[in-house]
């Protein structure tokens, strides 16, 4: 290869305590290219990129930018070298405006007034050049994640980044938003900028990158030209074994209804109806998928059925027991006793107490189960026993039930929640975003588990913003838009037809 290198990493090594997150890593990134980085959860991708961005310091190794060896002492140094980064977890001040976030650290003088005016002009120009429109005076916490990410990109461009690192940018985006992002990345590349893209989605790698590097357990295992590799090969390199990219399942044989939802209406925190008059049913032995662009009431629907969110009107029937939730609210614990299990969308906020040990999380919400203790006392031995069994069955790594849950990678945390809910043998399982931020090895496993649950005669209600996931798993697809179910389709339905429904096209046509 003859193109000059924008970045060269030589022998990068990084430890966090006893964890060796990066082992002797070499990486070459050509100038003016889009370079993908893939790897399982915890492979060390974010760590490597954060070292390049000066957020962490490597224990050993050399960094060269544009051919010159450099020391990157802090992010300021990286920014000065023209490196910008969009972090996996956004680095935004939530109660600041877009403009304030953009200028933070690049204010252009001790007083804000002059810098703000200049930044406003620059932002306007960038927004037009790259089709990155955001209201500069909007407050971050009021913006949907897609727009928050634009702010992150604008932050990097505002600082004049020539090398842009994006760490799992599409995890939170809808397909349309992701397409938009990729168009921007291509424009940037065509301008001669270099893009480093971390993602779990091999389809994206194939669609947009020029080269791709694969990491596994802290090591760089391969770099390929995208045109000369395949999703299958990349998956195998990542996991170290062959991976099924398709979900294998037999046609469903639905039985009796296990979940019936009648005219459910629920509000969000601001008192706006976000679930409006929703009715459907899930039968035993089928997976019903709810597709929709995030923020159209799917999350609230799951929470309302699970007993976490107050219901304004409507009823829910679980396995024949009718619960008039509006008149007699039922809490999550009671819902569980009726046979409902719930894997919440946001595992950190609602699924786990990350400062607890794994075994404590493994019984969260089921701690009153007589199998785990008598009266107010917990039987720690029995709980750990059960937790170890789940760890083995779900291949949770590292296999240590005493470890603090925060120490597990995202995919493994998700497995802990899934194991807890599925192993309780529910009649109906609600799952939200089961594979968000999870690597392909774990996705394959989680999908298999959900299908196995279905085949065991249970009902599954699946909410996901990944259309691919819905189409692969569901036996029936409901599309939600603006709080209502706007249509039911077979999973084989054309992607663009589903996309139109998700965008509310049916609604508008009817009006």
């Amino acid at each position, binding site marked *: 290869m003859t193109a000059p290198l924008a970045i060269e990493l030589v022998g990068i090594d990084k430890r966090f*305590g006893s964890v060796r997150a990066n082992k002797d890593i070499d990486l070459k990134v050509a100038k003016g290219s889009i370079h993908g980085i893939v790897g399982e959860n915890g492979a060390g991708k974010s760590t490597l990129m954060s070292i390049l961005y000066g957020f962490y310091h490597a224990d050993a190794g050399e960094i060269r930018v544009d051919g010159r060896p450099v020391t990157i002492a802090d992010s300021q140094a990286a*920014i000065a070298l023209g490196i910008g980064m969009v972090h996996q977890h956004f*680095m*935004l001040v939530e109660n600041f405006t877009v403009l304030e976030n953009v200028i933070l650290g690049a*204010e252009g003088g001790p007083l804000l007034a002059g810098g703000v005016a200049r930044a406003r002009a620059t932002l306007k120009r960038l927004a037009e050049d790259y089709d990155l429109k955001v209201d500069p005076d909007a407050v971050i916490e009021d913006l949907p994640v897609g727009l928050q990410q634009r702010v992150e990109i604008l932050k990097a461009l505002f600082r004049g980044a020539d090398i842009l690192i994006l760490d799992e940018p599409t995890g939170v985006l809808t397909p349309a938003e992701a397409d938009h992002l990729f168009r921007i990345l291509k424009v940037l590349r065509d301008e001669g900028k270099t893009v480093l893209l971390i993602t779990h989605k091999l389809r994206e790698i194939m669609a947009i990158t020029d080269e791709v590097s694969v990491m596994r357990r802290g090591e760089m295992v391969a770099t390929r030209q995208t045109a000369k590799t395949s999703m299958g090969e990349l998956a195998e390199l990542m996991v170290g074994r062959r991976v099924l990219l398709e979900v294998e399942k037999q046609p469903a044989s639905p039985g009796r209804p296990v979940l019936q939802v009648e005219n459910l209406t629920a509000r969000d925190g601001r008192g706006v109806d976000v679930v409006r008059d929703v009715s459907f049913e899930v039968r035993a032995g089928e997976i019903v998928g709810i597709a929709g662009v995030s923020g159209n009431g799917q999350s609230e629907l799951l929470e309302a059925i699970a007993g976490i969110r107050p219901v304004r009107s409507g009823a829910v029937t679980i396995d024949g027991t009718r619960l008039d939730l509006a008149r007699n609210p039922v809490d999550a614990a009671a819902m569980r006793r009726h046979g409902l299990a719930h894997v919440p969308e946001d595992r950190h906020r609602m699924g786990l107490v990350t400062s607890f040990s794994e075994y404590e999380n493994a019984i969260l919400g089921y701690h009153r189960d007589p199998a785990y203790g008598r009266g107010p006392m917990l039987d720690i031995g029995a709980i750990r026993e059960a937790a170890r069994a789940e760890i083995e069955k779900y291949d949770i790594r590292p296999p240590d039930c005493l470890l603090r849950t925060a120490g597990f990678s995202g995919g493994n945390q998700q497995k802990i929640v899934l194991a807890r809910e599925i192993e309780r043998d529910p009649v109906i399982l609600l799952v939200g975003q089961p594979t968000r931020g999870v690597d392909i090895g774990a996705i394959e496993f989680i999908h298999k588990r959900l299908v196995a649950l279905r085949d065991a005669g249970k009902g599954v209600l699946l909410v996901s913003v990944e259309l691919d996931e819905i189409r692969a798993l569901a036996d029936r697809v409901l599309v939600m838009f603006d709080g209502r179910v706007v249509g039911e389709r077979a999973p084989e339905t054309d992607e663009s037809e589903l996309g139109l429904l998700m965008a509310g096209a049916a609604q508008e046509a009817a009006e």
Partner: protein
Amino acid sequence: MFDTLILILDSTVRLATPLLLAALAGLYSERSGVFDIGLEGKMLGAAFAAGAAAAVTGSAWAGLAAGILVAIALALVHGFACITHRGNQIVSGVAINFLAIGLTALLGQDWFRQGGRTPPLSGDGRFTNIQLPFAEALRDVPVIGGLYSELLSGHNLLVYVAFLAVPVTWWVLFRTRFGLRLRAVGENPAAVDTAGISVTWLRYRAVICTGILCGVAGTYLSVAQSAGFIKDMTAGKGFIALAALIFAKWKPVPVMFACLLFGFLDAAAIRLQGQEIPGIGEVPVQAIQALPYILTVVLLAGFIGRAVPPKAGGVAYVKERT
């Protein structure tokens, strides 16, 4: 009636001043994400240092300098424990309060042997009241005379400093680079770090600002309001200031109104002491003195809007978990 009101308001201003200085002090630290329940201790330490220095040198200005230096030193101890060593901010604050109570009593007795007091100050040893221009001439004009000559004029320098600190703090917080970064680091230190700004240095600077204002607050107590340091003379003002800060949701201008309100309650309590109110009888002073705390609890319970503290407050910034 009008004259009584003016009198109560006049003492409101005097009583609100140390609260205001301390609350603004706390605002800098807490907005940067370092909670500080050690305002009381810093104020007490500063009051003692100021009283002692003014007594020895005979200069109020030397007292002010000593007060500020001691408060900054205590603030840096807090910073060293919480920022550098990521210690628990509450524990460190409590420790500073105890340290200040103990040390001021011990050193006071050892140095001056007057039962923990510092020698009484007079003349240049105190900040005396300043008459604003034309205050004398306007004194007898109805209403305006009362408002201008009594209420606005005739306070010592530090009172004006305190009220001037309100717009200055607002300006610093919302119109300067330092203020932007300060507010950011209290909400999301990682965002500040990835923007290439040192979280540690920024928080230290915030804590130093806290020290300076606590120093002025302490000096006010011993060198302006009274003529010398008296043991435990802060008497919980640091905590009331903290309550005012929370009550005002960590915003400078509301902080001023909260402090004026709490100062007014204090002034009213003093005024009503031992007096019969027709129909009610004698009002227990303690009931009025407890009001700032009760109001703050009511606020925290969510009855009057919501007090959302800086999001990263109370936790040290840890980048690598090892």
